[in-house]
């Protein structure tokens, strides 16, 4: 019965399947070596970085320049911002040593250093005159120096914030942008430019959840409205009067005259809205300017740049830098420094400028950048504005009251990643219209109070 016709066809099937499995097994066996190789020897280092355009350029330029001159191979892992942060803190906190170098920021550097996860760079800096540490802008240099006075990271690029707007749209509407606008003026201008062109909104502001997304610009608004996350003696102020006023202002502004999809809009979405002519203004990091003025940008040359809007403070600050740190567990610190010295150095800026265009230079970190004639010729409209904004940043005094921890658009404590993200989800929901600002901040206050309690002890 089971030796009938079906048996033959089944046997054939079985044979085919067995053959297929054998082939697959062979494939698997051959491919085992995939990607391995270079990772072990001292002539190669592993670098983990965020996949912003500046880093992608770096990745493209490394093999032909750095590797060619030093013989050191660089294995890059590039990931989106949220992913990269999770991975960095995981690898560094366990000192797993998978990566020799990672892009960290002025947020992580102080407490990573305090926990002993980073290699101090002072000896390397001292032995590398060409690097010229004093050329690094002072606020950034300070922000990457830990409590013990040692330098733990070197900047790749730095940024403050400013208000970018469409000069042509403003002219057509007969509007002028004050050089030092207040947020109230900006709100008025947003109402006036809303609908200036078909489908154009007044202003783009980030609304995407994430402590580095909506929380960054919003915290600067809170600062200038006179609010703070914590008082100096660690009392949470998230539902305080000024914090609430600032958040209401921000949420109302973006709901009334802000971009489409605001609750999901981060830097990338706003950049896209601005380049596609869907918004007339954009308040964000200075590093956006180079991207807006890039050669293939449809709005190149149509933009004006103003100082970050203020309310109660003299200026509205922001300071952020993507910087390279060396993991303590790395056994290749010497090679790692060579890489950092190259990527953060002056010659790299020259290389990018001449090969990819001056608007793509990873700027905002060195004084010398702002003395390069070629750079100023290409980015003249925003370069000075950005330089002033970065130089004016003071992470220890960003608002109207003393703070318990450094940081401008964030609070410089390890818990802020989680706290900021949780609060940002509430705010994002308020922007989407799912709850009121009061409800969002009441929930945020509870989270903040839990953190504050730990520090009060």
């Amino acid at each position, binding site marked *: 019965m089971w030796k009938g016709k079906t048996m033959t066809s089944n046997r054939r099937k079985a044979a085919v399947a067995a053959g297929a499995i054998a082939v697959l097994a062979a494939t698997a066996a051959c491919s085992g070596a995939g990607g391995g190789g270079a990772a072990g020897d001292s002539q190669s280092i592993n670098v983990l970085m965020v996949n912003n355009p500046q880093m992608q350029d770096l990745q493209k330029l490394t093999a032909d320049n750095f590797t060619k001159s030093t013989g050191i191979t660089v294995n890059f892992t590039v990931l989106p911002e949220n992913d990269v942060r999770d991975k960095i803190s995981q690898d560094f906190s366990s000192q797993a040593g998978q990566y020799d170098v990672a892009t960290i920021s002025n947020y992580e550097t102080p407490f990573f250093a305090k926990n002993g996860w980073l290699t101090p760079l002072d000896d390397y800096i001292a032995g590398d005159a060409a690097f010229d540490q004093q050329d690094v802008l002072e606020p950034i240099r300070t922000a990457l120096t830990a409590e013990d006075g040692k330098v733990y990271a070197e900047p790749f690029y730095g940024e403050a914030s400013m208000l970018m707007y469409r000069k042509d749209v403003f002219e057509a509407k007969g509007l002028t942008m004050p050089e030092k606008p207040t947020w109230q003026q900006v709100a008025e201008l947003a109402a006036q430019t809303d609908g200036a062109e078909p489908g154009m909104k007044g202003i783009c502001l980030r609304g995407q959840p994430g402590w580095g997304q909506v929380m960054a610009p919003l915290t600067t608004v809170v600062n200038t409205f006179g609010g703070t996350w914590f008082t100096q003696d660690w009392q949470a102020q998230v539902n305080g009067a000024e914090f609430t006023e600032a958040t209401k202002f921000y949420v109302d502004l973006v709901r009334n005259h802000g971009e*489409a999809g605001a609750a999901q809009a981060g830097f990338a979405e706003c950049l896209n809205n601005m380049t596609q002519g869907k918004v007339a203004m954009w308040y964000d990091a200075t590093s956006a300017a180079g991207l807006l003025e890039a050669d293939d940008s449809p709005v190149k040359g149509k933009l004006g740049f103003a100082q970050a809007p203020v309310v109660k403070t003299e200026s509205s600050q922001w300071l952020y830098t993507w910087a390279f740190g060396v993991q303590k567990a790395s056994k290749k610190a010497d090679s790692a420094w060579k890489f950092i010295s190259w990527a953060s150095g002056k010659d790299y800026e020259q290389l990018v400028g001449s090969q990819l265009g001056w608007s793509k230079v990873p700027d905002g970190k060195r004084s010398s950048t702002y003395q390069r004639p070629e750079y100023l010729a290409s980015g003249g409209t925003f370069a000075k504005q950005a330089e002033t904004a970065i130089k004016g940043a003071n992470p220890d005094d960003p608002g109207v009251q003393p703070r318990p921890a450094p940081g401008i658009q964030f609070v410089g404590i390890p818990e802020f990643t989680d706290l900021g*993200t949780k609060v940002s989800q509430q705010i994002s929901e308020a922007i989407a219209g799912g709850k009121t600002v009061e409800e969002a901040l009441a929930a945020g206050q509870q989270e903040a109070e839990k953190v504050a309690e730990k520090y009060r002890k």
Partner: protein
Amino acid sequence: MTLDTAPPPVKQVRRERPTPPRGPGGASRWARRAPLLPALIFLIVVTQLPFVATLVISFMRWNSLDPTNRGFAGVDNYLTVFTDAGLRSSVVTTVVLTAAVVLISLVLGLGLALLLDTKFRGRGVVRTMLIAPFLVVPVAAALLWKHALYNPSYGLFNGVLTWIWGLFGSQNPPQPEWISEMPLSAVVASLVWQWTPFMMLILLAGLQSRPMDAVEAAHIDGASPWQVFRYLTFPHLRQYLELGGLLGSIYIVQNFDAVFTITSGGLGTANLPYTIYQTFFQAHEYGQASAAGVVVVIGSMIIATFALRVVSSLFRDEVRS
């Protein structure tokens, strides 16, 4: 209460229901067990031992961002877990998300399977097109939905609306902000799109295994198509529906890719896997995350036990009647 008849879509379970071995123990029992052991031991080592470790860690005070402050915490982590509003709401989100995706994709999958069971031109092509969503890598699908479809300024959905309104000369098409306005539905829709083909395949397999002589006999007896479906097809499909529901639930309860990619857990869409992931990798509260993990494990074991038994007893009634 045994499970033998529960999960697999086996037609004649009764007949070859295995009888447990009797008589001489020792050697022969071990001979029977031998083929089972490699898989069993492997699974215990890889899946159970880590949970023992999780259990131990759940009683520790351990935040990797604060390496100097590590020690025994007693039940503190569990107290935090039970009082955490975020975790509670993520339980609700998980239940809603799973139930919605499983039910909707089962219903759609059933409809599509019934359609594919009829004869029409190009049926093979239609089936191939319908299977495609299941074969797109989930994270690719999530990226596709978030950026290429839902995006309010250049996504396909709003693009099509602009185009349709443009046909009628309107300059002001509605441009919904899909993810902001309906975050959970947005996640559900993308998952339903992926899982409907899977349900369809299982149900199609069920339909094709239907005893056709009974259906034809019913037709000859003058039964309406609805009666055929209600009294013949549907009871036959029941075990396949249960199989689809069970498999779907197992995978969607654990879904991480879609929530992580589409909403980053914002707007009330954080489900349990995402919340625990966040506690591990963003807050670095290892102890607290482990405690949450332990609670979830116990919870899902209880629910799974009930679910499996309910499903199996339902099926047994079916067979008896």
